[in-house]
């Protein structure tokens, strides 16, 4: 109780320290005045009385000092004094302080920004209830190289009834529907989800209600809208609930609004509609049986992923027994949902970049440490004076640490501001393929990271000078007289070690960047199988009333005619859907010389117009292209790509052969191969083309298509307006959307790689510069402090060349040591990120040799400048100065 009171008293005193000071001054003054007065009354002269009063009082200053100690916390006093002193010192050495603070701020800022990305994309839990229990369930087929395939409804039904690991299993898929309204028709992304999906994820609509599983509701066509759609379409009004949207020509009722930012796995849609899960009325012609879904499940609380995987594998083998022999290779894989959100490659890339920035931070800290060490040598005298005046070693170390931590805190604040700017930039310009980027923010964890890394920086920077101080005999007379020959062996040792470490770290980064640049080089040199330059893509949807295939065929033909007539258009073609995001495996029956074979094949099927291959620039290798003769009533024909030709008719000419979709005994029609085209890497340059078949547009016109227009302009987008008008002239109710140059659309596949490569290259260039500055500073300083030695050497006959070699040799020796260590580290780390490489091995000799040469050159240049100065030392001056 009493102690608590004492603490409170001190705390109060701390706040009012100035007033306390004033009061004790006044009290002592009154005391002395009273005493003087009494002595005067005793008969002393005023002068003598004052002296007598002083004498009986004792030392006023000591008294006040003791007094202050009583009311203050001693260490806090020391601390605030240290802080004030540090501020003064830093201000005085402002060049040092500015350089260090700027370096550290940049390092802290970039690492904090990177951490915020890692935090949002990888570390922060998914915005669902108990997200660690959520799993994606995939159908896999190793013989087809299908690892993460969608699953058919009846399979999911079997999984649900047969498994006990899951508390629930739900399905979803993304699709596209036409939303028509007063402003015209538009194509819009819709998430089709099983009614139990939201409860399974633990997500409640922000307003309204979710889907119920009742069958009756399926007929009412309820729809949930995204927060974004609600804001854009309804202006955030609560009238939205209960209103009607016309989707694919049929009215649907809005029953709820989802929370902002809601998405399932990576599916982000404006509208969400339910699909019947089981036992519902089968809509369409058995569409439910052929449709495949993404499947998400919630594990029961006590079940691990391994247990679930074991159970599902057993179920898969049971299900396989019922399948035709050709399909008995199916498996089921159970993977954490978090892996689906951010693919392993993105994860790896983020960790790599995060590590790279941390390396950069270490290099920057090493540089600042080196600077402050150099400075501590020049401050040796100050320290010696302090020690002579009675400061203990601990006290001096504490002061040095306070200085550096303060430096780091200032840098940390600036760095955090920088990070804020970076975060904005990343949000604005980051690769769109990276999920959850919109969640990047400066949250508590990121701020904690910034604080931690700032303090770490401060301690790293302050520790080395402190150690050097401890090692030095503070009171040595040499230090006091201000003569320090070459600045303490410890200091030099630490600085050399720092330079070695900097080079090692820089090399790791440079090798990493080199490998990525080489991968980039390989990727961009791949022939995609078509020529995307000067091609404009626009998506066209037919009006919902165009139910007859001939209507659509006719529309497409007229649209193509109109477009081809437009000025600046060289050619135009139509394909059902140019971009492949997920291919499905199916059974294909093929006629070969040795007989008819059924086999599972991961096949992509597209409808194309006669001129499509011309327009996109894909060469026809054999056979013929489609012609007007391939009409709906003509025999069914197909063009296949090389991958399919190779797989289905290995070593034989495939033109003229027949195949059909489905098993041998199915009654589906036969296609006759009339031509073979080159493989098109439509899933991005880095992915091999899957087997593809093309059928004439006229024989099976889809409801929506991609139109490809080869223009004569390098900026095809400039023609978008004219082309849009051309289409409108043909049919004003057909929605056009997604107009973009093919190069840009296709380039999306490359953005992530470009982003990684660009960032890592940037980091490593900065690292190289920092390392160069580090070695330059060290050599420069070594020359400055060894002026006398150099003078001596010259006076006993050393030539300028000898001095030059000595100085450059020192720098080179350090950088080569760093090089050796760095190359080992790079080789080791390179294997860890080999998943990000393309076409190069982690130990790519070209990269390693180039980087080594580059670094050696940089080290020589950085040592050259100071070495020149050393050569210019005038021996007479050098010897006299000291």
């Amino acid at each position, binding site marked *: 109780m009493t102690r608590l009171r004492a603490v409170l008293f001190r705390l109060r005193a701390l706040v009012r320290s100035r007033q306390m000071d004033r009061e004790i001054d006044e009290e002592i003054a*009154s005391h002395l*005045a*009273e*005493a003087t007065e009494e002595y005067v009354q005793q008969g002393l002269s005023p002068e003598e009385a004052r002296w007598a009063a002083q004498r009986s009082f*004792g030392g006023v200053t000591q*008294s006040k000092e003791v007094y202050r100690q009583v009311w203050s916390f001693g260490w806090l006093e020391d601390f605030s004094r240290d802080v004030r002193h540090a501020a003064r010192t830093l201000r005085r050495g402002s060049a040092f302080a500015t350089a260090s603070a700027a370096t550290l701020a940049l390092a802290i800022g970039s690492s904090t920004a990177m951490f915020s990305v890692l935090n949002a994309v990888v570390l922060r839990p998914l915005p669902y209830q108990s997200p660690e229990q959520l799993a994606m369930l995939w159908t896999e087929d190793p013989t087809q190289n299908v690892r993460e395939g969608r699953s058919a409804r009846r399979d999911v039904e079997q999984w649900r009834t047969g498994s006990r690991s899951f508390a629930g299993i739900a399905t979803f898929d993304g699709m596209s529907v036409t939303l028509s309204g007063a402003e015209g028709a538009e194509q819009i992304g819709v998430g089709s989800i099983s009614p139990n999906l939201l409860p399974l994820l633990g997500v409640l609509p922000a307003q309204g209600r979710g889907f119920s599983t009742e069958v009756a509701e399926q007929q009412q066509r309820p729809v949930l809208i995204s927060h974004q759609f609600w804001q854009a379409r309804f202006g955030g009004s609560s009238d939205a609930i209960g209103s009607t949207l016309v989707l694919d020509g049929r009215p649907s009722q809005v029953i709820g609004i989802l929370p902002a930012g809601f998405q399932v796995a990576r599916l982000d849609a404006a509208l969400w509609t339910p699909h019947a899960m089981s036992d519902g009325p089968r809509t369409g012609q058995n569409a439910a049986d052929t449709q495949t879904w993404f499947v998400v499940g919630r594990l029961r609380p006590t079940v691990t992923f391994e247990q679930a995987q074991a159970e599902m594998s057993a179920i898969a083998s049971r299900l396989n027994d019922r399948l035709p022999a050709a399909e008995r290779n199916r498996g089921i894989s159970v993977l954490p949902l978090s892996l689906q959100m951010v693919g392993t490659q993105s994860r790896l890339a983020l960790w790599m970049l995060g590590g790279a920035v941390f390396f950069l931070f270490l290099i920057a800290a090493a540089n600042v440490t080196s600077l402050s060490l150099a400075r501590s040598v020049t401050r040796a005298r100050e320290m010696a004076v302090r020690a002579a005046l009675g400061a203990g070693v601990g006290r001096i170390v504490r002061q040095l640490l306070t200085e550096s931590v303060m430096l780091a805190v200032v840098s940390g604040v600036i760095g955090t501001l920088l990070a804020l700017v970076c975060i904005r930039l990343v949000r604005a310009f980051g690769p769109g393929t990276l999920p959850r980027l919109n969640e990047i923010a400066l949250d508590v964890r990121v701020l904690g990271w910034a604080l931690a890394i700032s303090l770490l920086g401060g301690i790293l920077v302050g520790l080395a000078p402190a150690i050097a101080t401890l090692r030095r005999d503070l009171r040595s007379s040499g230090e006091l007289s201000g003569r320090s020959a070459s600045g303490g062996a410890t200091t030099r040792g630490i600085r050399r070690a720092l330079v070695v470490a900097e080079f090692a770290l820089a090399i790791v980064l440079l090798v990493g960047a080199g490998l990525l640049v080489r991968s980039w080089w390989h990727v961009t040199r791949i022939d995609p199988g078509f020529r995307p330059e000067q091609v404009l893509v626009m998506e066209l949807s037919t009006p919902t009333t165009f139910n007859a295939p001939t209507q659509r065929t006719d529309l497409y033909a007229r649209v193509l005619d109109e477009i081809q007539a437009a000025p600046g258009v060289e050619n135009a073609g139509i394909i059902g859907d140019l971009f492949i995001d997920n291919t499905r495996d199916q059974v294909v029956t093929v006629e070969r010389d040795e007989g008819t074979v059924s086999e599972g094949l991961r096949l992509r099927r597209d409808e194309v117009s006669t001129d499509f291959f011309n327009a996109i620039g894909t060469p026809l290798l054999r056979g013929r292209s489609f012609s007007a003769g391939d009409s709906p009533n003509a025999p069914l024909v197909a063009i296949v790509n090389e991958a399919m030709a190779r797989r289905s008719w290995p070593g034989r000419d495939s033109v003229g052969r027949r195949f059909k979709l489905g098993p041998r005994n199915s009654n589906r029609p036969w296609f006759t191969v009339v031509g073979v085209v080159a493989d098109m890497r439509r899933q991005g340059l880095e992915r091999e083309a899957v087997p593809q078949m093309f059928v004439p547009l006229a024989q099976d016109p889809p409801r929506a298509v991609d139109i490809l227009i080869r223009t004569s302009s390098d900026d095809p987008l400039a023609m978008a307006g004219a082309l849009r008008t051309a289409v409108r002239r043909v049919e004003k109710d057909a929605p056009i959307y997604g107009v973009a140059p093919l190069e840009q659309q296709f380039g999306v596949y490359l953005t992530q790689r470009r982003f990684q490569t660009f960032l890592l290259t940037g980091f490593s260039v900065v690292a190289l510069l920092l390392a160069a500055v580090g070695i330059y500073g060290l050599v420069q300083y070594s020359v400055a402090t060894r002026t006398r030695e150099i003078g001596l050497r010259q006076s006993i006959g050393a030539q300028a060349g000898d001095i030059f070699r000595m100085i450059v040799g020192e720098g080179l020796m350090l950088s080569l040591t760093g090089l050796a260590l760095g190359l080992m580290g790079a080789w080791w780390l390179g294997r860890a990120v080999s998943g990000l490489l393309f076409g190069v091995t982690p130990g790519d000799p070209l990269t390693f040799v180039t980087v080594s040469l580059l670094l050696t050159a940089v080290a020589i240049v950085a040592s050259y400048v100071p070495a020149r100065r050393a050569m210019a030392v005038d021996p007479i001056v050098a010897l006299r100065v000291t």
Partner: protein
Amino acid sequence: MTPDKSDVLYGTLGLLVIKTLEALGPLHGYLIARRIEQISGDQLALNQGTLYPALLKLEQMGWISSKWGTSESGRRVRIYTLTRAGRKQLEKEEAQWQRAASIVERFLKIAENPS
């Protein structure tokens, strides 16, 4: 410092202060110092400056309180008063001292006449 005066025994200044305040009522710093000197018959070599940290410590412990007032000669001074807690503390310390003193006394007697 005159050699025949003895130093204030370590740790006893606080006791002297609160005893003085108990006996004489509220006083300002200089008067406390003077009274201590006078009561000791000018036998104590009190370094008056040490009084103020002691006063502050006593105030922190809550045994005395202070407020600004005026001395007889009209100066602004801080006047110290014994609090109730201080009175209790005084009783405790007085008893302790007497016991300690009597023990010491008994030892000294033994030393004088070993029996």
